[in-house]
């Protein structure tokens, strides 16, 4: 239960970190360490070099932008959940963070670290998918920006090239009149979700949904968007049968499973949680109009 030996590097600036990453062989980035340290202790990961981003202060912080909030990748989950800006402009993120780990892990765990680790049952990737977050990714030559839905490449694997660092996550502001909800089922509080659902519904002054976004985690390696159900809801106000049909679509998504939580059970949960999340989101949206 002790890590294999590695060399440790602690750059103070992003440029230094990028240079180390580009030049050192078999290097891993250390963010908050709440997933990587267990993998090191269990020797599931055995990097030769660890590049600690903990002292790169420019990667941490939350700022308001014209159309939302911008979160530095090394911002801790705890700092995010305590941010008044997040509370007012991105309440879905706050609701999801209530399910993420324990305070001791949220004190150190970061927003960017969670997205890059991409655990299939983690909450934050589901929120990033539902909110259509944009990720800014840097290497020594510059930076690029991609939508979160383009980011996953497979199980615990992202599109990050080996010389790239996720620097910023931009979440669009939840529009006035929108409703949102995050629902998950896990066997114990603070466990990873078995299935998690994040919903944002933008409701117009006529009480009808102008846009709906539904993301589900826990079925496959990365969060799935429920496009069929989304288009089923747009142009309509809340109605129990329509929401039931949308939730039914969630049970049809491809689902993996294991002995403890087989695919049929996860599909069932996807349906139940989608219905609950949609009911809650529509209710909140209307009460805001």
């Amino acid at each position, binding site marked *: *239960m*002790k*890590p*294999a*030996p*590695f*060399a*440790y590097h*602690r750059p103070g600036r992003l440029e230094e970190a990028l240079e180390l990453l580009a030049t050192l062989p078999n290097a891993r980035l*250390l963010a908050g*360490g*709440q997933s990587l*340290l*267990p993998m*090191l*202790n*269990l020797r599931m990961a055995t990097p030769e070099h*660890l590049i*600690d981003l*903990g002292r790169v202060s420019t990667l941490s912080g939350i700022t308001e932008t014209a159309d939302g909030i911008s979160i530095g990748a090394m911002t801790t989950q*705890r700092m995010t959940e305590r941010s008044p800006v997040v509370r007012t402009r991105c309440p879905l993120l706050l609701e999801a963070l209530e399910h993420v*780990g*324990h*305070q*001791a*892990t949220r*004190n*150190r765990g970061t927003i960017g670290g969670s997205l890059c680790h991409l655990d299939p049952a983690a909450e934050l990737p589901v929120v990033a998918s539902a909110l259509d977050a944009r990720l800014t990714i840097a290497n020594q030559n510059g930076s690029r920006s991609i939508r979160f839905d383009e980011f996953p490449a497979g199980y615990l694997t992202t599109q990050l090239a080996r010389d790239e660092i996720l620097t910023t996550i931009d979440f669009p502001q939840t529009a006035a009149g929108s409703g949102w909800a995050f629902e998950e089922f896990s066997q*114990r*509080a*603070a466990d990873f979700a078995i299935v998690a659902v994040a919903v944002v519904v933008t409701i117009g002054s006529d009480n009808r949904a102008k846009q709906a976004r539904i993301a589900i985690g826990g079925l496959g390696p990365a969060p799935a968007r429920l496009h069929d159900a989304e288009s089923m809801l747009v142009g309509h106000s809340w109605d129990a049968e329509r929401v039931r049909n949308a939730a039914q679509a969630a049970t049809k998504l491809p689902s993996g499973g294991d002995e403890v939580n087989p695919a049929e059970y996860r599909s069932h949960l996807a349906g139940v949680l989608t219905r609950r999340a949609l009911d809650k989101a529509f209710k909140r949206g209307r009460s805001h109009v």
Partner: protein
Amino acid sequence: MSEHTVLVTVNGRPYKREVDARLSLADFLRHELGLTGTHVGCEHGICGACTVLVNGSTARACLMLAVQADGCTVETIEGVAEPDGTLHPVQAALSAHHALQCGYCTPGVIMTLIELQRERGGTELTESAVRRALSGNLCRCTGYQGMVDAALAVLAAAPEKASGSID
């Protein structure tokens, strides 16, 4: 493979050590400083036995490298009671409510409750909030009712005064 100098203040006292990069903060406290009150259970962040305060916030000492604590202030169970042995109010409450048996999880539980007390002490705290806070500390012998009772009793009282021996 890679040695680093660590300067860290633990329970108000500064220490300087040369450590291997892969040494965890938990093993650093126990093996380098002899502070064996921080217990090591699962070594992968599940059990909470090794919970300490780093710059005032709880952290799993098994999920932090000693080198990451360079420049930080750490508080462990050894710094919680008064130097004359008078128990901290959280410790006294746990004792009064029979909230420990073997005591293996207790140091982590106390550090978790001290953080909760500093942040929320004196405010109305629900049983479910206390249970949520304690959900990251596994106890396999006592059960949680005594801990919950102790926490509700002590946290409903005044918030912790700025602690004298540690800052």
